[in-house]
């Protein structure tokens, strides 16, 4: 059913295009969206539920509160006027977040805060005390060394551990 629908749509599009080339200026051709839906007004929002789901401050405040009630998770100068490298910094940040999420699996209490001071990258993280301190030390050293070699600049981690996650409200 779906296959026939798409094929029918494609045929319809093709015929419309042929018609428009033939000289019908009023007919417009529309493409087919093939990505997943991602509405801007539903991004990073956890919807209200029964009241048993704990949220931290970061999750509870929605993205339009950034700059008003929330700060920025990533700090660098590339978004200033006439500064270069904004895209590179963003890609680095995304990679670092995924990397840390995987390396310290289950231990992250909150989002990462990534600060850049000159060419060093400082990763500030809040962790839960799920593994032994020695394991934490190893993972921190491993992360710092690997990321430093990967990005060719000093990478430092500042970790704080909590017993349990800080809850802001329940939804």
């Amino acid at each position, binding site marked *: 059913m779906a296959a026939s629908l798409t094929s029918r749509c494609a045929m319809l599009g093709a015929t419309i295009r042929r018609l428009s080339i033939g000289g019908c200026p009023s007919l417009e051709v529309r493409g087919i969206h093939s990505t997943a839906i991602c509405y801007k007004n539903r991004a990073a929002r956890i919807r209200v539920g029964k009241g048993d789901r704990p949220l931290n401050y970061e999750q509870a405040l929605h993205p339009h509160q950034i700059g008003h009630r929330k700060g920025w998770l990533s700090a660098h100068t*590339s978004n200033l006027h006439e500064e270069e490298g904004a895209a590179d910094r963003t890609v680095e940040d995304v990679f670092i977040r995924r990397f840390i999420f995987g390396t310290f699996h289950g231990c992250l209490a909150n989002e990462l805060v990534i600060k850049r001071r000159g060419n060093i990258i400082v990763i500030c993280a809040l962790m839960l005390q799920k593994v032994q301190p020695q394991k934490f030390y190893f993972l921190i050293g491993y992360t710092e060394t690997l990321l430093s070699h990967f990005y060719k600049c000093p990478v430092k981690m500042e970790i704080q551990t909590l017993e349990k996650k800080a809850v802001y409200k329940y939804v």
Partner: protein
Amino acid sequence: MSASTMCTTALSFTRTNGLCLGNYALSLLSRTATYSTALSTNNGKGFPNRPIRGPRRPKRESGAPRTEKMLENQDWTAVYPSAAPFKPSAVPLPVRMGYPVNRGVPAEKKGNLELMKIPNFLHLTPAAIQKHCDALKPFCTEWPASLDSDAACEEHFPIQLESKEFVSAGSSLRNPKTRVVTLKVKLSSLNLDEHARKKMVKLVDDRYCKETDTLTIVTESCPLRQQNYDYAMYLLTVLYHESWKTEVWEAEKTRADMEEYHWEDSRSQKNVLDTLRRMRVTSEGEEDPGAVREELLGQPEVQEYRESVTRLKNEGETEETMLQYREAVKKLLNV
């Protein structure tokens, strides 16, 4: 098996030597013996036995935060020696941050991500800055006492160089805009005579500002700042030497190339002389035209006219200059 032999040998050792190791040592030996026996046994398959899983070893409690052990007169520069994110266990202030829930208060500092996001200046207390200054002082020298005013600085250092440094955060600290070098020099401080000055102004064209008498050379064609600086100094040297030289073709300078207006041999002079001669011709007869010319030019009215016209052409039309011209013309024509 090995443990039991170890025990007997230990006991025999103590008895034979007559030394009393004491209960502690014996218990230590026995404890180590029992511990080793527990772990050394193997399963048939070759996997070692894990320790008992039932009641787990109690989790080690985290120690008291550093804030509890802080004295009032501690050295804060030891707590925050350099820029670091906010550490709630190291900052003894009851700070709260965050938008409160309904009928609540802002969240406490423990586990507060908002406090970690913002930059803090805990490493820049006055005491810390004083320490930095004290450390840097041996490398500094006094400002020379004789350079006490701008005029003195300009007199001794007439060439001013400007270059920019850029600070940014990224994987590379290089910025291509740092290579630009600006060289500023006042032409009055250079040793130029009239011809050299005019030639210099003509050579540099736009780079000379007449109001401030400053020549500005901006170099950015080389990749390094040092190279651009050398190039700027080279340009200045070449300009200076070239403007002192007089080329053969400079003799062909026409009236249109002149920078200022000269009344001598101008149309205005010719017109004035013609007018005055015609005014005179009625009274005298034939005379030597050269002498007449000299006499006419020597008159004060003509001189005044000359001044006013030169001023008008060089400085432009203002109230003053127009009035002066009017007065001169009136006097010349006896009106």
